[in-house]
């Protein structure tokens, strides 16, 4: 009976088999590492953009937001970037576990390492223009959902409408429901980068004093993202009313 070693040597010669080249394995092993690092870098960039978007959110409005704090969080949380962070991190995890010795590390060690690296990287990237640019690109291509009707509730202190005229400390507003309001802005906080012009749609938060008068605490552009984009473009720091 033929020995196994002889059978195998015969088979190797018959099929003209040869060990694959070292270069093939190097390309494969380093390729996985390169892809894993690219995925990690992507996760860091997305963390940076996520953080930038959170930092630029209208946190001052949290106590005043229509629909309450949960509605504010639902409107503010950058779900899109969160999804991209999770996808890039999952891909980085998948690839890292497939590196030559990646299996030796536990799930928590790998996932924790990816989390720490992407957060550290993301925070470092906040100093660069990349996160704002990505954010602007996203807003441009996928405008966030904004519900005008949520802001038209004078009884609850919210007004939404188009500026009809501007007097020194008074705005005449054509509201969304076709009513006309005199909005007192004497004590209102207005973002410095926001210039109110006639014809512009705005949001006001304040108190209804009677059927046609409203005292504003905050005056904001119609769409919250409008302000964010202005800040990103001008590289402005956190809001200062």
């Amino acid at each position: 009976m033929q020995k196994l070693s002889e059978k195998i040597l015969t088979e190797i010669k018959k099929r003209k088999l040869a060990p694959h080249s070292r270069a093939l394995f190097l390309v494969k092993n380093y390729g996985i590492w390169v892809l894993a690092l690219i995925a990690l870098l992507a996760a860091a960039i997305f963390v940076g953009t996520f953080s930038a978007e959170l930092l630029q959110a209208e946190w001052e409005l949290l106590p005043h937001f229509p629909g309450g704090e949960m509605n504010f969080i639902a409107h503010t949380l950058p779900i899109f970037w969160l999804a991209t962070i999770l996808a890039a991190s999952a891909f980085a995890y998948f690839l890292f576990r497939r590196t030559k010795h990646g299996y030796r590390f536990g799930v928590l060690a790998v996932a924790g390492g990816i989390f720490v690296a992407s957060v550290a990287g993301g925070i470092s990237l906040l100093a660069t223009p990349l996160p704002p640019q990505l954010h602007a690109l996203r807003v441009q291509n996928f405008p966030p959902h904004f519900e005008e009707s949520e802001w038209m509730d004078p009884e609850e202190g919210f007004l939404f409408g188009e500026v009809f005229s501007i007097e020194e400390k008074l705005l005449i507003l054509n509201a969304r429901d076709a009513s006309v309001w005199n909005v007192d802005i004497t004590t209102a906080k207005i973002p410095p980068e926001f210039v109110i012009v006639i014809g512009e749609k705005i949001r006001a938060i304040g108190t209804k004093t009677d059927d046609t008068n409203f005292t504003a605490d905050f005056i904001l552009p119609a769409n919250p993202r409008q302000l964010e984009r202005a800040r990103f473009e001008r590289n402005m720091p956190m809001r200062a009313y």
Partner: protein
Amino acid sequence: MPPLPKDSNLDSDVELVRLALADSDDYARIVEKYERPLLRYVLRISNISREEGEDLLQNIFLKAYQNLRDFDSSLKFSSWIYRIAHNEVISNWRKKSVRIAEVSLESAEAAQLLKSTLDIPTTTDERFLAEFVHSILAKIPQKYREVLILRYLESKDYAEISDILHCPMGSVATLVHRAKKAFELTAGEAVLNKFI
């Protein structure tokens, strides 16, 4: 293939790999060194005939030969080639789409496994014991079965099992612990069912 000089270091696996890469005839040394343990391992973890096991073994050695340059000398060669065997067995199962229902064990091996996992004296009839262990191993999940075989029959340490199964060492320890528990529980239930 010339006989190995006694004073050489040729029984070192790394050296054997180096020689096999230089001349395919020298690959026979690796095959001869590992054919018995690998065939035993393949038969232990899969429900295939000896003939089928030998065919599978041939594929394992051919695959190992083609991937010889991927062998990382920081690992044990045995772990590397056991990993290839493990993968081939799994791929063979998938091709056949069958679940392993039995395990090939010698009576003495069954006794050894039972003693290692349950810490009981094994003075019972070896044939009865082998049948009993077979039935228990057939009932526990495959991941537990393989880790018990690697640990107690192949005498692999945790680091080697980690390299063969591609899971962290901590998970190997947990897996061995759970496998022993599963074996113990299943064995206990089997004994109860037999006598009640």
